[in-house]
């Protein structure tokens, strides 16, 4: 039997019909996650056709993108934006009509779709998982083939539980060695994207391998896989191991008893075979990595935090020079300048990249006994209500509040700026989210992507700061 990669094993296991030259594969979907923004038109299409949802039992909906994160009053969230409110109501109507379980704003399990899937034990190794959101790649941390789809495809999955897919290529990203102090999963993925480029993994499923990846906890692995899309990848994967099984074990939707034993023996086989071939491999040494920060207007425009903003004049092509020029103009930065000491207005800790309990613990450890610098606004937005409750039980909310930060309700918040949490024109933010595109966090806002450690160090300094030298 030929050696197969992890990706090929999952792919083969989900083919309802293999692909031919004329027709893509019909691929079965094990779990479909749904949210308010990319689903209304898909449900409308089902209604037009008189179609039903084929497998409501493999579908879960939540509200996250346009939900307010301002504190609840009398336990209820008030949605003041009438358009957002209508969209949220539409999701509730659709879920009711089609029999889909919904974690709505009153549900204690509500949160960002890519936080709650793993947290509830729904995300498991070997599965195919889709959602109308590009950061679905997050779930690949469990060795699940997980990718974002558009609204037409959301409709296809609702109606048939399948998708038409061409088999992507498969690329290995190997990181060996031990991470230096102050360097986290976020820094690894920003370094990878800077190396392979914003479109460098287009058409590929990435598999992250190597001893530095094996040493990471599940939440750190999620941070890595989350941003696979920022290099253009279809998905990111990390082979499951004991760390994975220990994380899944005992969660609400995880298998139990004999089913758990059967799952473990299935998961055991989910590794790339010795000698399996990738279309391409890229290597990084963990020991050479530093805390990373973006300086430009896409996530590949990143440098070590003590580095210098590149000079467009030194770019390798005219197109790259134009791109860099435009980015530096937008960010109001000069070629060759250091970002350390660059003043910011806002610090945002949150998003499906970095809003889990370990992220909040890291940020809180920096904030404890320190204070947010004058003139800086810091928002801490837990990824789910479960994370929020856990953080409050540990007293992290008090640490943030005593430091002068805002402790908010769960949601996507300032990562996508659909819910009123946004930068004003010209404001700068260090953000633990995943995209620094122009206007992403609010029209005219300038985003510097970094880790929770860097974000917290920046908040207390009032300017971009290196966690390794924070006094």
């Amino acid at each position: 039997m030929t050696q197969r990669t992890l990706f090929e094993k999952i792919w083969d296991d989900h083919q309802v019909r293999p692909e031919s030259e004329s027709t893509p594969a019909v691929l079965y979907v094990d779990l479909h996650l749904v949210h308010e923004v990319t689903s209304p038109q898909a449900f409308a299409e089902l209604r037009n056709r008189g179609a039903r949802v084929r497998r409501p039992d493999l579908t879960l909906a939540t509200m996250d993108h346009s939900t307010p994160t301002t504190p609840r009053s009398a336990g209820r969230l008030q949605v003041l934006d009438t358009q957002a409110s209508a969209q949220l109501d539409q999701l509730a109507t659709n879920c009711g009509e089609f029999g889909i379980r919904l974690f709505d704003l009153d549900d204690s399990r509500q949160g960002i779709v890519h936080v709650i899937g793993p947290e509830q034990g729904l995300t498991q190794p070997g599965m195919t998982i889709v959602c109308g959101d590009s950061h679905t790649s997050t779930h690949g941390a469990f060795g699940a083939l997980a990718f974002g789809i558009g609204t037409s495809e959301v409709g296809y999955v609702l109606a048939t539980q399948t998708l038409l897919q061409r088999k992507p290529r498969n690329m290995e990203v190997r990181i060996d060695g031990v991470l230096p102090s102050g360097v986290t999963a976020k820094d690894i993925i920003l370094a990878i994207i800077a190396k392979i480029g914003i479109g460098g993994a287009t058409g590929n499923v990435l598999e992250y391998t190597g001893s530095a990846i094996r040493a990471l906890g599940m939440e750190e692995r999620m941070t890595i896989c989350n941003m696979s899309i920022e290099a253009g990848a279809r998905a990111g994967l990390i082979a499951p191991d004991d760390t994975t099984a220990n994380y899944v074990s005992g969660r609400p939707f995880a298998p139990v008893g004999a089913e758990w034993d059967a799952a473990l023996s299935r998961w055991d086989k989910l590794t790339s075979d010795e000698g399996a071939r990738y279309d391409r491999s890229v290597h990084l040494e963990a020991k050479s990595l530093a805390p990373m920060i973006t300086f430009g207007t896409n996530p590949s425009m990143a440098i070590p935090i003590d580095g210098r903003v590149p000079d467009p004049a030194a770019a390798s092509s005219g197109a790259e020079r134009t791109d860099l020029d435009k980015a530096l103009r937008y960010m109001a930065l000069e070629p060759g300048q250091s970002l350390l000491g660059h003043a910011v207005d806002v610090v945002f800790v949150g998003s499906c990249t970095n809003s889990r309990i370990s992220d909040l613990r890291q940020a809180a450890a920096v904030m404890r006994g320190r204070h947010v610098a004058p003139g800086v606004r810091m928002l801490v937005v837990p990824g789910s209500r479960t994370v929020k409750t856990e953080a409050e039980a540990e007293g992290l909310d008090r640490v943030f509040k005593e430091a002068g930060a805002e402790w908010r309700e769960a949601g996507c918040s300032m990562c996508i700026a659909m819910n009123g949490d946004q930068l004003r024109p010209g404001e700068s933010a260090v953000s633990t989210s995943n995209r620094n595109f122009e206007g992403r966090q609010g029209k005219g806002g300038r985003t510097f992507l970094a880790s929770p450690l860097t974000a917290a160090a920046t908040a207390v300094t009032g300017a971009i700061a290196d966690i390794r030298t924070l006094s």
Partner: protein
Amino acid sequence: MSAETLEPIVTLTSTCIVLPAENVDTDQIIPARFLKTIGRRGLGEHLFADWRVDEKGLPRPEFPLNSPEARDSAILVAGHNFGCGSSREHAPWALIDYGFRALISTGFADIFRNNALKTGLLPVALTTSAHAMLLDQLAESPRAPVTIDLETQTATLPDGTLHAFAVDPFARHCLLNGVDELGFLLGQDAAIAVYESTHSSRVCTS
């Protein structure tokens, strides 16, 4: 494709609008604040909103889509890796609503390309040299027409040269023959049922 999909394109001859930037992300094509809609229409008004309009809400005269000719052009010519970023299908919906029926670049982001094909917006990836030739010719004659032929998978540049482009055979078949992908998948019901009977569910959400 859906019930709201446009008529299939077999050939299209049109002037072009050139947006030479590389890595144009979907947040630029349609900023997230416009995604709070439950319909597909009306997004053209907000296409490239933050590039088209300045802080005061006034059109930026230098932006290509603000030229008087832009409304007549059904082809947008952009730089490499067009449509990177989010999975929002609102991006192709906005481009179509504005009046575009085809895009020319040297490469498209995966999810964007899939979404475009499913909504009847044709992404045409030319070679770097053909793309450069097209940009040169349009710089010289901005109103020169380009013809895209899906049947023969060729683009005819203003100078009359023919350049091949690749389209997934299934997507091409669907576009040319008005085949509806959801209908195709619904027609796989028996095969899907067989798969379900031989593969037990991994989770149960209900």
